[in-house]
């Protein structure tokens, strides 16, 4: 690299080099992750480790094949983060090969074939999750009941090995997620009041996370805590999370008011499933979201709208993955058409008119 002709800009402006950004995002995920691992026990930990390690391994192999300096790029932490996010969106007791396949899809198909970090069109973790959901619907929708570590119903170390690596069924523990349950019941002609009559799901449980669900998505509260911390650290800006959550909440409120028997309320929509994780950690992925603040508002609102539509009327119980991917595809278009106003120009890019009295 020719250092001789580099223009200046020499100060340590980059107080957030890439690896520091990734590290802080990972740190923000720790509370929700720790809670998820505690809630779903050893099988969850095995799956989590398998997924993250294989993501890093796939990244290393790809870098090697591409002839890029593996040390430089592995250390940026992006593969770790991708694997981590993917693991958090998997059913906690899924077999090991779900994690490995997912990690391979995310790193190879989702990221490296586009040319590596910064080049991918779609969020790698969501790409992998959706591909898994479509390919292995049974494994991807078999949810475990909360069985906290060291509690009576929790599987032991060895039993957990059997669940993750041995193909042992989890029939005794299987359950449905809140939104999946609501959907199933509604499709059988029941109202929401009847569906939640047995008290299996409580609103507080959904927010705190004491419900069946993906490994790291159950506790909306802890995810939100991490997200707010990222906002305060200025790693992410408010535009995408706020517009996404506000859109989901607004739509849910309107439809819930229209027909409370058929449509879940906003608190349920925000507290259950992957909305919170999507709002703060997935839709805010730098690479696959628009660069300008206005573009980000549109992107977030689009994600929110699609999540609500897919959840409410779609064929799948959860819409986060599809919604984010669809909006990812729109990102280049948004970036092309939605640009900040340039100083001295109007929104169309024409120079401003001179004030009266001047030519």
């Amino acid at each position, binding site marked *: 690299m*020719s250092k001789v002709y*580099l223009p200046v800009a020499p100060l340590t402006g980059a107080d957030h080099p890439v690896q520091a950004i990734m590290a802080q995002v990972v740190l923000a995920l720790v509370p929700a992750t720790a809670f998820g691992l505690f809630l779903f026990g050893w099988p969850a930990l095995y799956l989590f480790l398998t997924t993250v390690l294989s993501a890093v391994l796939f990244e290393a192999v790809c870098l090697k094949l591409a002839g890029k300096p593996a040390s430089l*790029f592995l250390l940026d932490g992006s593969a770790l983060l991708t694997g981590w996010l993917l693991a958090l969106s998997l059913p906690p007791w899924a077999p090991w090969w779900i994690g490995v396949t997912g990690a391979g899809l995310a790193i190879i198909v989702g990221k490296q074939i586009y040319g590596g970090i910064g080049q991918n069109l779609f969020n790698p973790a969501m790409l992998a999750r959706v591909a898994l959901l479509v390919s292995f619907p049974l494994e991807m929708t078999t949810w475990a009941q909360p069985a906290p570590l060291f509690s009576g119903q929790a599987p032991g170390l060895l039993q957990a090995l059997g669940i993750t690596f041995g193909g042992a069924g989890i029939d005794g523990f299987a359950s449905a997620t809140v939104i999946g349950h609501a959907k199933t019941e509604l499709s059988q002609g029941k109202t929401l009041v009847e569906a939640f009559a047995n008290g299996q799901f409580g609103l507080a449980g959904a927010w705190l996370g004491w419900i069946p669900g993906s490994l790291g998505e159950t506790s909306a509260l802890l995810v939100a805590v991490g997200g707010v911390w990222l906002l305060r650290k200025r790693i992410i800006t408010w535009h995408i999370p706020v517009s996404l959550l506000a859109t989901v909440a607004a739509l849910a409120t309107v439809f819930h008011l229209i027909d409370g028997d058929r449509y879940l309320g906003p608190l349920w929509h925000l507290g259950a499933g992957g909305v919170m994780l999507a709002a703060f950690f997935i839709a805010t992925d730098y690479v696959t979201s628009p660069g300008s603040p206005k573009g980000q508002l549109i992107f977030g609102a689009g994600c929110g709208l699609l999540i609500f539509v897919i959840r409410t009327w779609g064929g799948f119980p959860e819409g986060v993955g599809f919604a984010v991917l669809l909006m990812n595809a729109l990102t280049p278009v948004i970036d092309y058409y939605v640009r900040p106003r340039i100083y001295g120009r109007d929104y169309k890019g024409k120079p401003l008119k001179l004030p009266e009295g001047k030519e």
Partner: protein
Amino acid sequence: MYILFAVLSLTALGLALGFMLGAAARYFKVEDNPLVDEIEKMMPGSQCGQCGYPGCRPAAEALVAGKASATLCPPGGKALAEQLASKLSLDIDLAGVEDQVPMVARVSEATCIGCTRCFKVCPTDAIVGAPKQIHAVVADACIACGKCVEVCPTECLGMQPIKTTLRNWRWAKPDLAAAGA
């Protein structure tokens, strides 16, 4: 019966469309390729012949026919090559063009005999002077075609690279290949 119907309708459709295409090709035929005119306008028009064609129009025709590369015109340089490539939707390797340093003709005053041969051949009238007087090159108008060098009887004309000064110095493109960026 249904199969027969499908086969018949598709055959009819194919025939109809084929006839339409054939008719269009016949009735809307363009006699002279307008692209050649456009390309010719883009070329320097000095008919210097450095491309190996007898002038700019033949060169344009060769380009449109795909017989010549977009990088054929040395006076046009990289800028013209890029314009031509985008006009003709060609993929070109500009690496070779870039290597050519821009040149300018220069008269060595010691050996010039004022024979006027050079300015007769100069396509852009970039050489000034009168018979029996030392000639000079107007650097701004010179396109470095080299015709003058060929005809000069005393070899007093030569091509020299244009000197980089503060006025024509430019920032180089950042080269970040090392970091894989």
